[in-house]
């Protein structure tokens, strides 16, 4: 079933989950365009999404970098105390000769969330300044989306909660600054994923980039 020849492929959207093809029409603010066949959400624009995603990425960066340098948890039992940082938690595996796992955990809770925030900032900051995206912005955005499932700060926070219950009757645990920073990070990450409409950002990343050749084309007649 070939499509008409004059169709502009950039107006189409194919559902990544089931391949159904549509002509994309942007729904209103806060509305969602859902694939009829598999109910996958295709477009969910939110006004000012780019500003919010950039702001939240900066927040993530600030929270994580701070969390790395402030105390995390302190345990007290029968006169003995021991305090630990977020990095200590990940590196506890290296004490048991599981260096790979230590690095992996460090990546899942700190490095990947930081990398995602940096990639998003790199891709989206120029759009905020109404400039064309930087070279590689689109690759950066794709990578940040690919990293999304591997960014596990929120799972880490729940893990800390479970660990606290486990030691509750053995010792007293004091929650310190880094714990609260991580708790805030969960909220920020959830908000960020809610604002992030991939389709709108791809349109923005493509549209603004396309403007420069168009501007060249407009300039050409002057040459001639």
């Amino acid at each position: 079933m070939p499509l008409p020849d004059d169709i502009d492929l950039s107006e189409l959207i194919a559902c990544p989950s089931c391949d159904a093809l549509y002509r994309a029409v942007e729904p209103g603010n806060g509305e969602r365009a859902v694939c009829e066949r598999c109910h996958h959400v295709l477009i969910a624009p939110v006004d000012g999404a780019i500003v919010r995603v950039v702001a939240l990425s900066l927040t993530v960066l600030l929270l994580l970098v701070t969390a790395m340098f402030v105390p995390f948890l302190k345990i007290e039992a029968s006169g003995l105390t021991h305090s630990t940082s977020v990095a200590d938690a990940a590196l506890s595996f290296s004490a048991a000769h599981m260096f790979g796992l230590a690095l992996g955990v460090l990546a899942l809770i700190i490095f990947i969330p930081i990398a995602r925030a940096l990639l998003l900032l790199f891709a989206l900051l120029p759009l905020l300044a109404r400039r064309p995206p930087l070279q590689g912005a689109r690759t950066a955005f794709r990578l940040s989306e690919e990293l999304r499932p591997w960014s596990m700060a929120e799972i880490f926070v729940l893990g800390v909660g479970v660990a606290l219950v486990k030691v509750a009757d053995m010792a007293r645990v004091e929650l310190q600054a880094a714990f609260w920073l991580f708790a805030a990070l969960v909220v920020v990450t959830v908000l960020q994923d809610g604002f992030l409409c991939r389709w709108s950002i791809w349109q923005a990343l493509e549209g603004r980039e396309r403007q420069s050749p168009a501007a060249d084309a407009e300039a050409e007649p002057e040459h001639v």
Partner: protein
Amino acid sequence: MSSLENLSAPMITARKAGLVACTHCARVWPRGPGSCPRCGAALVSRDRRSLSRVWAWWWVGLICYIPANLFPMLETTLLSKTSGDTIVGGAVVLAMHGAIPVALVILLASVCIPVAKFIAVAYLALSVQHNWPSDRLRRMRLYEMVEFIGRWSMIDVFVVAVLSALVQLSIVVSIKPGPAALTFALAVVATMLSARSFDSRLIWDSLDPDPDPAPDTASLPVSTNDPAPALAGAQKDIRP
């Protein structure tokens, strides 16, 4: 409320239209090998090797998951006496101390979710390989759930990390991660990769047989009357 416009009265897929869709950015392009000019991801109309990757990671996950249950996850040294706790053992100890909700969270995240995930991914892959006529929308939901929930299994690894970093009270009590922590983490990563390798478009393909398997635009002029009845017939199938 949906503001997508169908291109034709029966649903048409990118493949049927002779196009190939990018699963990363949802843009469509004319068929041909290569990568998406917009986002740079590899473009494949249907990833034929997808199922072999799903099964490869599935087996890796299963092989790692077995020792993860047999070996201790935590080694607790209390006054120079060391004892190991497996995943299930640790949850039982928690439940005996009265922390039943937390024991349930651990059992759910470390036993129920991984086992359910192995079953779900195997079912999805087999259903596609053997063209099982089960409800497609339900299979799609199942796949989305597997993708969404799978990463939460990592919680037990983080619990072990925090406990062994925190509980270091000189000779009185200390906790060390056990060998199961490593194999468990590998099992979670392998099952996540297995689920992500699955091309969910395959679930919908039996509705819409490929007019021409060769990725060749020359085959585009398929008669327009042909696909419509086939599609209508197939759609009756999915309604029970």
